Each structure stands twice: as C-alpha cells, then as structure tokens.
C-alpha cells in the first residue's frame, strides 16, 4: 500500500542523492542534473502532500512552476557551462577554482 510515507521516503532519497551528486561529482553537467534531482524531490513532495493531506491545488501549482523554473535554470546553467567550456576546454569543476581569497 503506497502511502504518504513512502512518497516522502523517495523524495528524501532523491534529495540526498542530489546533494551527494553536487558534492561528489566533478562533472558540471552532472552537477546540474543533481540540481534537477533536488528540485524534483521537492516537486514530488508537493504533489504527494496535496494528494494525501491537503485538499487544495496549491501543491500541484507549485510543482508545475517548479518544473518550468527547473527548465529555465537548466537552460541558463547550460549556457554558462558552455561559455565556461569555450574558455577552459573543460567541464571539470576543479578548474573553476581560480577565484580564491
């Protein structure tokens, strides 16, 4: 029986995975994907909560918006990554460490 708990568990797993990707992967594209994971985790949360506890549409709306914005963010992010790649011939995150205090 699928209940709220399982949804939350999945979303939490997604969230953790996203964070771990952000932390551990060195490939920038992969990191952008990590962001997607995190966003999706919350989107899933919104949907699940709406379904099981709250009987209003807020959650659905929010998750829709999340999808849109995730797309926009990914677009911008990729653009920047491309620019970065043009300049450095690399999408390795460690090459983005010239700004040091």
């Amino acid at each position, binding site marked *: 029986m699928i209940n709220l708990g399982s949804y939350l568990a999945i979303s939490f797993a997604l969230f953790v995975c996203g964070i771990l990707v952000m932390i551990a992967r060195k490939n920038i594209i992969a990191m952008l994907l990590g962001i997607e994971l995190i966003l999706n985790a919350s989107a899933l949360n919104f949907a699940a909560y709406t379904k099981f506890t709250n009987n209003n549409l807020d959650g659905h709306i929010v998750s829709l918006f999340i999808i849109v914005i995730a797309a926009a963010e990914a677009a911008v992010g990729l653009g920047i990554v491309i620019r970065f790649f043009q300049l450095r011939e690399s999408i390795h995150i*460690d090459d983005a460490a010239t700004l040091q205090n």
Partner: protein
Amino acid sequence: MDYTLSTVAPIVLIPFFAFVLNAFIVKKFTKLAVAISTGAIFVSFLFALRIFMDFMNVYSVGYYIHKTFTWFDLSAGSHVFKVNMGIYIDNMTAVMLLMVTGAATLIHVFSTWYMHDDPRFGRFFVYLSLFTSAMLGLVLSDNLLSVFIFWELMGFCSYSLIGFYYEKEGAGNASMKAFMTTRVGDVFFLLGILALWSVVGNVTFVDIYKAIGAGAFNNLYALGIPLATFAGVSVFLGTMGKSAQVPLQVWLPDAMWGPTPCSALIHAATMVAAGVYLSLRMYPLMELGHMLPFIAVIGGITAFGAATIALVQTDIKAVLAYSTISQLGYMVIGIGVGSYNASFMHLITHAVFKACLFLSAGSVIHSIHCQEMPQMGGLRKKLPYTFFAMLLCCFAIAGVPFFSGFVSKDRILGDALVLALTNANHIYKLVALLGFGGAFLTAFYMFRMLFLTFFGEPRDHHIYDHAHDEHLGWNSNVPLLILSLFTLGLFYSGSFTGQGEVNLFGSKNEWFSTLIHKPDATSLHHFSEYKAEEFGSVDTRDKVQLTPAVYDENHGMSEHVAHEIHQIHHIGAILSIIIAFCGIFLAYSMYIKKSVNPGWWTSTFANWTKALKNKYYFDDLYVGKIIQKGLLPFNDLLSRFDMGFFDKYAIDGWASVNRWAFTISKWFDNTIIDSGMVDGTGASVRMMNVVLRTVQSGKIQMYFIVIVVVLAGYVWTLSF
C-alpha cells in the same frame, strides 16, 4: 603697636617684590637691581628689629601675634574646607627674624663686593632676594602648609644657586643632588602634614599643640604605627633632608658649587636652619611620638661622623660644610635630649658664626683665588681683618668660654650628660659620648683649618705673592667684623660664661632660656587660650596684662632636683672646656709646633682616612649603587616592557588577532574542509556507491559540504 599687613608682611614682601622687580630689570640695570635687593633686605631687617624690640619690651613668655586670612575656601553646602594662611610670631620667631634678616643683610652687602666681577652679578641677587624672602616667609608662617610652601621655594632657590655656574657639569650634578636629596625629606614632610591634617583638620601650629594637649592623637593609627609617631617621623625626615642629617647629609658638601656667599646663606641663615626650626616647632609631636631618643641618636651620629670627615678635608669650604653638618647634629641632639632653648640658641649662635666663617673663607678665596688649604698658609699678615674675624669664630665654634658656641653647645652637652647619667634609656650614654667626642674633633679641625690657612710659612709662594692685601672696606670685610662681634656669648646669655652670674642687662639676663617657651607636655595647656585674629584687625590685647617673664634658676623644678641637675651641668661645662682646649692644643701641636706628625696618623689609619676622604662612601652607595645600578636599569626595563612588550603584544595584538582569525579560517577552509571533509565524504560515498570512483574536491563543492554540515547542525540543535 598693631601687627597688621603694614608692619609684619613687609618683612617677606619687600624682598619678594625686590625679586619680582629685579627679575625683569636685572638684564638692563644690574647695579640698580643689586641696590634694590640689598636695600630691600635691609629694610626688612629694620622691620624685624622693630618687632624684636617690641617683644623685648613686653618680655613675656605668653606674648604672641597670630593673624590669619583665608587663602582659599572650598566650602560648599555641607562640606566645610578652607585653607588659612597667616603669621605667627612669638619670641622664637622674633629672634629668628632678627637673625635671618641680619645675617642676610650682611651677606648681601658682602656679595656686592664678592660677586662684583661675576658676569651674572645681578642674577645672583635676584636669587638671593627670593631665597631670603622664602626663609622669612617660613619663619613667619603659622601653619605647616605654608612652611612647606616656603620650604620648597628655598629648595628651588638652592637649586638655582648651587647650579649658578651652569656651564660647569659638576654644578648641574650638585644642584640636582641637593634638590633631590632634600626632596626625599620634603615628600615625607608632606606626608606628615597630611597625617596631621587628617587629625587636626588644619595644620596651624597652635591648633596642633591644642590637639596634642587635648589628646586627639590617642590610639589613632596609620599603617599600624601610632599616628603621632607616624607623623612625627615623617616631619622629622623633612628636617633630616633640609638640615642634612645622616643619611641625607650628602647634598650639603656639594652645595659648595654655588658662589661662597650663597653657601653662607644656605649653611647659616636659611636653608639648614629651616629644618631645625621645623623640628623645634614640632617638638610636642616628637615628644608625643616617643621619638626623642631616636632624634638624639641621629643627631649624635651626624655630629660626630661629620666631624670625623671634616678632619681630612683640605678644601677650606669643605671643612666648613662638614662643620655645619656636625653643628646641625648638635642642634638635633639638643632637640633629642629636650634642651629646647639651648638647641634654638645654638641655631642662632651657629648661624652667626657660620655665616662669618663662610664670608671669611670667601674673602680668603677671593684674595688668593684658591680653596685648597695645603696651598695657603701665613695669610695672617695679608688678611688681618679676615684672620681676626675667623679667629673669633673658631673660638666660638670650638666652644671656648665667653663665646657664643660655648654658651649654647655646652648646655646641649650638659643636658645630654644629665640624661646619660640619670635616664633609664642607655642610648643617651652613646649620645653624650658622641657629643663630647664631636666637640673635641670640632675644636681640632677648626683650628687645623685656621692654622693651615693663616699661620706658618706660605706653602705656595706664587699664590701668596699674588694675593692682594686686605683693606678695610664697607662691603668687603666690615660685614665679617660685625658678625664676629656677635660671636660673644653675652649677647645670648646676658653673661659671659653663660651661667648667669654676671647681670649685664639687669633683669634681662638669660632671656633665651627665659623667653623661649618650651612647648612640652607639661606646658601645652598654655596654648589652650591662644586664638588667631583676622588679618588687618588691630591687635587689642593689653600687653600689661601679660605677666613679664622672670629667670627661674631651677627651671620650675624642685630645689633638690635642680641642684643635682646643676651639678651635672657644671661637670659638663668643665668637661667641654677641657675637651675644647685639648682639641685646640692638638691642632697647635700638629700644625704649628709640628710636634705631632699628622702624616703618621693618616698612614697608620690609612683605611680610615680613605673612608673619611670618601665620605663613608655615601655618594657611591646612593648614586653608584642605588640609582645607577638599581633605579635606571629598572626604568629602562619598565619602558621596554611598556612599549616593547605590553603595547606591542597586548595592545597591537588585538589587531593581529583579527589577522590570525583570518588566516586560521583560510587554513580551515583549505586544509580541514578541503582535504579532510571532502575526501572523507568521498570515502563514505565510495563505499555507498561504486559508481562514484575517484572523488576530487572542488572549491564550490566544499561550499556545499559546509552548507550541508551547517544545516545538519542547525537541524540537530533546533529539533532535539
């Protein structure tokens, strides 16, 4: 007569205004300035004489003048605090005034001759005026605070006068030494003033006497010491500084750096006298504080020790300087053994003959431009008047009968002897011993000086031949002769021997011991009805009311006791006469008859001689050890600590603390988080997930880790 601003104040103010005026005009009109100072002091002498005469007319122990005015007043609301200044004249003051003004006048006159060729002729008189006015102010003061003020002013004057030849390095040292050494005493004197103030509420002499009489000091303590003793010791330390008692005597010999007349002033009339005068004024306090034995011993040591040092001095002024210290020692002994009047008398007599001696020495130096006795000799023919004056003074200081020194010193020694024989406290025996020994030495070294200077054959013919002959001159040697005249005993005792057999001034004989009122415990109650008057108000007391003083053979003691005392006094007198003549004879046989060879003594007691020549190593101890080795290095250390350590690390440290924080945080970022945490997480991740093989760190990922960790931390703290 009424004692108001117009009759007393001029004694101080005329010389002071002379000083102020001269300070401005001295550069242009030197001669005028000199004339003004000398005239000023002479005028104040006349005023003093007037007062003295008045007191002699009244001739009563209880006669006094006490005028006060408010200097400043801090009373506000419930708090009452006002500081009064005023004049207090009793017989003692009257005599002091006469002595100071008289001696000062003669010294001024002499200086017009002595300093005449000096480039800073005028300036010297400026200082002299300030100096004398300060001393007069001190004598007239009715309270310790103003005493202290003038006392310090004198310190300043002596500083300027000793450093008068400021291009000489030595003068600078000497003047600083003089000021600092006396300053040590002064500071304690101030402490004493504070202590008295805290009890009495002001520091007027009379009020202090009243307080003591009323037992206000009973079971009061300061720092665990009985307050009377505390205050007494502090005040007496002031005396020790100014009157050059051991161990603060070091400055007085160096005071010779000043011109000779100013030495005369310092040694005779003003500076050193002030110290003893203070102790005399504070006698009740000393008595109350049970300090008399202590004082007596200090005096004894000073009297004897200084005399021994004088033995080996070859500089004529040095001999006189040490004789001064030793004579001051006698005065202090006098205070210590309770012979108040005699001590005071010795102050006066000594002032006179010591002034005379210094002026004579000055005249000698002026004529031969040399101070070393070994190079003198036979000057008797060249300087007859000076020789005559000096001879009389030597008799006086040696304590030959019919001379003032005998009258005063003999009484001090007599009283010392009395205490030595009768008093339970055996310390007085030592005091008496030192006293008589000192008397012997005094006689010896004074005549040694006399013989070396004036007798025998000239040892340095070059100097001798260039010495110009002395002619009688109103300002060159007349002052000496006048002073030497007053070395006769009868001016002080009214009789030649000083034992009151011969009635010279009718009933006025023994006026010193009759008029001067010894404020000891038994007689303090006299002061209970003393009262001060506002300045300017006419003195209304009808002097006829005052009971004239009469000379009491027994000093108020019972016939029997007085008889015993007199017995001892006579013994003492005879003893001191014998001693004096022994000393003179020894000197005679050494330096005239040459029957005894001084060289043998010096060679036999070589170490002693060395010690004496080095003044018992006091200077080495103070300057060499304490200051050079102790104080200055400590100061260096302290200032190094202050700027080099405290400021650098403790204060500027705070600036660098921030930098540390900055660097540490950086190091934290790079080392701990980067390598440690990132790789650590990486390891855990590797175990978790095989997909992530090689784990590297990137700066931004480090950021994420920090965020995650912090968030976790927050979550943890907030929710559990």
